[in-house]
């Protein structure tokens, strides 16, 4: 059956889910971290470390789900390290983020050297496209359980931030550390916990890369998703449900180049691949302004100062 340009649309929608899932996890992690008033640029390193850990554990244990869990735990350790360092006076969270990015990727490449060749068990996918005879649609609707979990996490996180005592504490610490101290809240401990939980989510996002799509472990696996998450969260106005839509949008944008290639448009391949970065930059230019603060921004955040 000839579907022509519809094929591009289907591939973009499928890509939105397939490529958007790691964006979703890492931006949810960044969202929680930023809500507590810290920015973690090191999630790029966390993502790579999560990808390596997930792949290695899956290979050794034979269970990809155990790999996902361990990837989260590895991310949690890196997140805790980041926020522990930042809790000292005059230690800049953005600079530590850059260092964590280099440290995390370096450590992952070091430990992951033996895992470049062997093939680990893959995360299973759920087939939602069995009703259709169009192979492209069937391929697009092969959905990983992690995507569905990501939706649940997004909803749960939004609810938790809004309705629970813990969520309120996180928001107070992110709004004003002084006010939080006046209330007797342990500012550093709340931030360390939030950043560690954020790292856990980012680590899971990394395991999706190595265990589902693109499903391998190599040194070029991540291409800045952890970094773009910071801008995604700004675009999502620090709201977990917003992170879901923005991640899908970014996934779709990233799928545009390869989809167009499938219908014979190959010119500007690299430029199409750069669309997510260009979009991220454009969004930051449009949403930021020197004259007003952003809607929904946690006021302790250095990124908007």
């Amino acid at each position: 059956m000839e579907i022509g340009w519809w094929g591009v649309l289907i591939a973009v929608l499928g890509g939105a889910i397939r490529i958007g899932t790691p964006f979703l996890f890492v931006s949810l992690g960044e969202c929680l971290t930023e809500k507590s008033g810290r920015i973690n640029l090191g999630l790029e390193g966390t993502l790579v470390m999560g990808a390596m850990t997930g792949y290695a554990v899956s290979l050794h244990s034979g269970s990809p789900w155990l790999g996902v869990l361990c990837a989260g735990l590895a991310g949690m350790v890196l997140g805790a390290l980041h926020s522990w360092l930042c809790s000292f006076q005059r230690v800049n969270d953005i600079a530590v983020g850059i260092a964590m990015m280099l440290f995390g990727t370096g450590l992952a490449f070091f430990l992951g050297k033996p895992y470049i060749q062997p093939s680990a068990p893959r995360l299973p996918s759920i087939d939602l496209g069995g009703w259709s005879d169009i192979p492209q649609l069937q391929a697009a609707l092969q959905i990983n359980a992690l995507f569905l979990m990501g939706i649940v996490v997004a909803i749960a996180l939004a609810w938790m931030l809004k309705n629970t005592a813990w969520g309120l504490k996180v928001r107070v610490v992110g709004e004003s550390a002084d006010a939080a101290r006046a209330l007797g809240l342990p500012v550093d401990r709340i931030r360390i916990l939030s950043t560690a939980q954020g790292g856990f989510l980012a680590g899971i996002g990394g395991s999706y890369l190595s265990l589902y799509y693109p499903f391998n472990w190599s040194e070029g696996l991540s291409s800045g998703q952890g970094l773009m998450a910071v801008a995604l969260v700004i675009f999502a106005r620090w709201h977990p449900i917003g992170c879901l839509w923005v991640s899908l949008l970014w996934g779709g944008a990233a799928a545009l180049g390869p989809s167009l290639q499938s219908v014979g448009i190959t010119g500007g391949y690299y430029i199409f691949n750069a669309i997510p970065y260009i979009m991220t930059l454009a969004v930051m230019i449009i949403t930021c302004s020197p004259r007003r603060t952003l809607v929904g921004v946690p006021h302790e955040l250095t990124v908007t100062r």
Partner: protein
Amino acid sequence: MPQTLNKALEPFLIIVGSLMVSMVLFGVFVASAGADPFEVYQTMYRAAFGTTFSWQNTLIRAAPLMLTALCTALPGYLGLIIIGGEGAVVMGGLVAAIAALAIPTAPPMVVLTTMAVAGMVAGGLWLIIGGALRHYRAVNETISSLLLNYIAIAVLNHFVTSTFRDPESLNHPSTHHIGEANMIGVIPGTDLHWGLVLGVVACVIAWFLMHHTVFGFASQIAGGNVRAAQIAGLPVGRLILIICFLAGAAGGLAGMVEVAAIHGRANDTLNANYGYAGILVAFVARNNPLAIIPVAVLLGGIRASSGLLQRAHELPDATVLVMQGIIFLVILFSETLYGRFSRLQKQGVS
């Protein structure tokens, strides 16, 4: 103790102390990976500084690091954290190669001068984007400069695979070769190319500019307190743009040197992480352009030892990345120590 000496001594002691702590932590790391840390350090010393050959190897790697460190160090005077050195290198190298190919019949000196100017302008304009977005749109300069790195690499890959591709570069898409006659030569009596001299000179000029001119003084004031600088009538926006241009020009020059002294063509080898290592150099040197020179040599040595570490101890090539990461984290942590020791000293005196 005189105040000025004290002022210089504190950062020196803290930085040297941090490097030693990093060495201990890295030693523990390699020991847990099954290697003898003392032997590893011996190997690293031999590979980096043991012989004339290894010194040359180290210095060749240090040259671009001096230039890319300026990409982060100069905006640092204004309180900006710009990490777009990688993008500036890539754009500088690409535009320099294109400029050389545009004037195929010109004499070598003219070609090299054109390349240097073109590369510096390209790198400078590329980093100005980050500075301008910061000043006029309040876009965080760290994130925008990092995104610009990825965009620069995409632009490079686009042009070397399409418009400017040498059809003979089959497996590794590149521009045409700029011509052997146009390559930067070596310093007589060594295997070192002149890029090292350019790096040292650029650092000295940057130091003079920032510490001994009115422009540098104004930048330091603007970096200390933007509001105070604006009240004093300083053109903060113009300072940001000029500093970002100079920073990017240094990176663009590094890209031009990579093309004109090493590869002869522009291709994706320009994206060799010199930009990211330069960030570390700038942080360790606390943005001081003169301190950048020895720190770049030190880091160049660490990077030069990667190959021998692999052969002698079967440690993966990412070992030096881990070491860089550890140094980076410890140096940032050491920021919290400033001011604590001087207080101790004062108490001791009184």
